[in-house]
């Protein structure tokens, strides 16, 4: 035993927070997965967390034997089971017992591990400021991981699961995302099948792909020579251009949309994919040029000079030396531009009226009406998200290094 000091208080506070936090997280996941409804006993879980932390903090770090660890786990079990009268999740154990047992086991282990990680080898006695802060930071980091994972994953989970449910069952219990696998694949994926057969999402997918790929190609074709000129060639206005090109990217799209709408209506470009393929590159070229020129500048100029000496023309140097060296940057710019074009909403929404040429963004908006059930809207969102997410995860390395290397210096 140690004499309880500030370290003990800190450990116990952290234990209480963990107890409540994990109870909320685990019982919500339990409800989402199993479809059962419960009112989680958060207060009791808080006490259980306090007790478990107290057991650990009350012993010297060197004396925390497996026996003490078991005592710490037992404290959770006893409090959680006893104070809730045998219903640790607020439900009698006879209801969905399998899900409950798994959830309770995970809950107990998580509370214990969190306490163990936070307290670590710190004693429960009086702690110097350094170690007290260490404990605080461990707790904050742990909570940060939980909170960030939840706020990012929950919406995407709801998006996917809603698309697999029916409107009635969601209205009956908005928490029930349990999947009934016995209904068969056709019934499970009904909203997707209907999107592609009745709502023409196949066409939208192709349109989006055409517009995005064309935007990438046009953007690269325009910005590679531009970026090379700005980064390598000397001409009046070079310094000004390299600094101010990004300003173009700051012009709000909403300011451009009225004149472009007016002009494109009069010259017949408004309700066409060509119109989008003109507007999108114009908005992405400045940022692509900026990213590329940052990368080109970082390439050793000696290589290019050697190429010039050996009789290559400028164009030859660009094609044979510069471009092969900057493949990572090109990939990241292409990916970034693809993302912008694929996700673009405003111009697609303003310009496209004809359902044959809807892009996915425009198509999903057309699902947002009271006549179309919610699961169709979410299925549309999934269809729009999956390709770009897939491509992104595939090329993530490029994107991250290219985005940050090209523009962030200093």
């Amino acid at each position, binding site marked *: 035993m140690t004499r309880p000091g500030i370290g003990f208080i800190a450990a116990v506070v952290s234990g209480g927070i963990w107890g409540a936090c994990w109870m909320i997280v685990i019982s919500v996941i339990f409800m989402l997965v199993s479809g059962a409804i419960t*009112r989680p006993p958060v207060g009791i879980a808080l006490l259980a967390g306090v007790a478990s932390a107290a057991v650990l903090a009350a012993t010297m770090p060197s004396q925390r034997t497996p026996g003490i660890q078991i005592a710490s786990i037992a404290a959770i079990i006893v409090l959680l089971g006893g104070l809730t009268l045998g219903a640790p999740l607020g439900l009698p154990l006879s209801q969905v017992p399998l899900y409950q047992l798994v959830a309770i086991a995970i809950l107990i282990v998580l509370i214990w591990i969190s306490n163990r990680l936070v307290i670590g080898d710190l004693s429960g006695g009086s702690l110097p400021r350094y170690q007290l802060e260490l404990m605080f930071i461990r707790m904050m980091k742990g909570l940060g991981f939980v909170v960030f994972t939840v706020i990012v994953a929950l919406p995407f989970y709801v998006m996917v699961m809603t698309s697999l449910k029916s409107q009635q069952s969601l209205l009956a219990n908005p*928490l029930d995302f349990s999947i009934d696998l016995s209904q068969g694949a056709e019934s499970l994926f009904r909203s997707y099948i209907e999107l592609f057969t009745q709502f023409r999402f196949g066409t939208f997918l192709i349109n989006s792909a055409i517009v995005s790929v064309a935007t990438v190609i046009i953007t690269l074709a325009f910005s590679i020579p531009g970026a090379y000129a700005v980064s390598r060639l000397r*001409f009046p206005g070079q310094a000004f251009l390299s600094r101010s090109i990004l300003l173009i990217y700051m012009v709000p799209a*909403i*300011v451009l949309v*009225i004149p472009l709408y007016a002009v494109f209506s009069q010259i017949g470009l408004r309700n066409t994919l060509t119109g989008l393929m003109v507007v999108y590159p114009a908005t992405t070229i400045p940022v692509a040029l900026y990213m590329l020129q940052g990368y080109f500048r970082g390439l050793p100029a000696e290589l290019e000079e050697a190429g010039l000496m050996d009789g290559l023309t400028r164009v030859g140097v660009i094609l044979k030396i510069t471009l092969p060296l900057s493949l990572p940057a090109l990939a990241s710019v292409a990916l970034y531009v693809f993302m912008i074009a694929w996700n673009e909403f405003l111009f697609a929404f303003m310009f496209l009226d004809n359902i044959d040429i809807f892009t996915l*963004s425009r198509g999903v908006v057309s699902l947002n009406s009271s006549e179309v059930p919610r699961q169709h809207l*979410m299925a549309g969102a999934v269809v729009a998200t999956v390709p770009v997410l897939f491509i992104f995860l595939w090329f993530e390395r490029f994107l991250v290094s290219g985005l940050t290397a090209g523009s962030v210096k200093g």
Partner: protein
Amino acid sequence: MAKREMKLAYVMLLPTFAIVLAIVMGPLLANFWISFKPVQLGDLRPASLITNERLRGDAENAGDAVAIEYRIRNSSRDDTIAGAGFTDTLPEGLTPTALDERCTVSGQFLTCELGDIEGGFRDRIRIEATVEPSYLENALNPRDSRPVITGTADNVLTNFEFSLENFRRVFSSSEFWHVLRVSMYYTIFGTAGALVLGLFAAQLLNTTFAGRGFLRGLFLFPYVAPVIAVAFTWVVLLDPFSGTLNSILQQIGFIDSPVNFFGERAVTINLFGLQFDFPVALSTVIAFEAWRYFPLSFLFILARMQSISSEMYEAAEIDGATPLQQFWYLSLPQLAGILAVLFLLRFIWTFNKFDDIFLLTGGAAGTRTLTVDVYEQAFAVSNLGAGAAVAVVVFIVLLTFSLLFFTFSPKDEA
């Protein structure tokens, strides 16, 4: 040599200049132009003559008398068309016998001059003709050749009449100052929220552990996914009747009755006897903004953190600096540059943001920002001129901010 290089540089930059001028700079100026014009959405199509041509009478035998009838009208109810008229080619084998007095025929070529016609003008023009055998053989329909319309109408977009009516309307409406204030709240808190979340997330992932790559990928999801997908997901998730979040909060006992996150303007909160109105919908869209854009600041801050040398921390460690002191006195000053740049960029982008609020609330419940107001004025109320005037305000506010930022920010950071 230098001259050739210069020429080459200009040639290489030419396509970029051309498209940026055409799609960005041109419209920017055009927006100023439109903002001084009383132009409605319907005015985008100038008044024009509309003709509808049909054959009257049966053309079965040679010598039958038929008539070609043109119904003509002015597409606009108000605008005059000057020098209106049309030309058409009559089908071969129809010989005109009697003409309307406004028309002349040379060979098979018909020309009708109507002069200036008023708005709402309607009339018919009859050309009587006899059928000849060649017409029956060819089986041509008079409608096969479409009349060519002539005549010019005054186009409000291109004439030189200007008025300040749009600006007067914008600035005199009581809503404008509210919209401006909402824009500022949204921009400042949305930017700050995204930066703070990004800084926190970067702190979390600045150590190596199993699953770090997975978490980094996951944290970028909100930024990578299309705005329509995540915005509608939030709408579904926060729905007061069938939304998951309301159910969760109710089950945990956090709230008693469902909160209409995107529909409720404000709730009165009583805190220690102090009463104030908490803007629910505005806070929710700000939360969405912070949620959606924290990955961007997270990426940049993490990259910067990983380039800070660990020696500094080792030295601080030896000197006895606590973890929070290390963060406050070492990390933050090192990150100040990138934080300033991110704040500037995100501030401008958030101010420009239209899609998010438009999709989440449509500008209802006290969330209408300037950009949403542009859309509302121009396309919902169909007053293009007023919309353009608001867009001018957006641009000027933006320009002011940019100038302020560039004047007061240290030079070495960009």
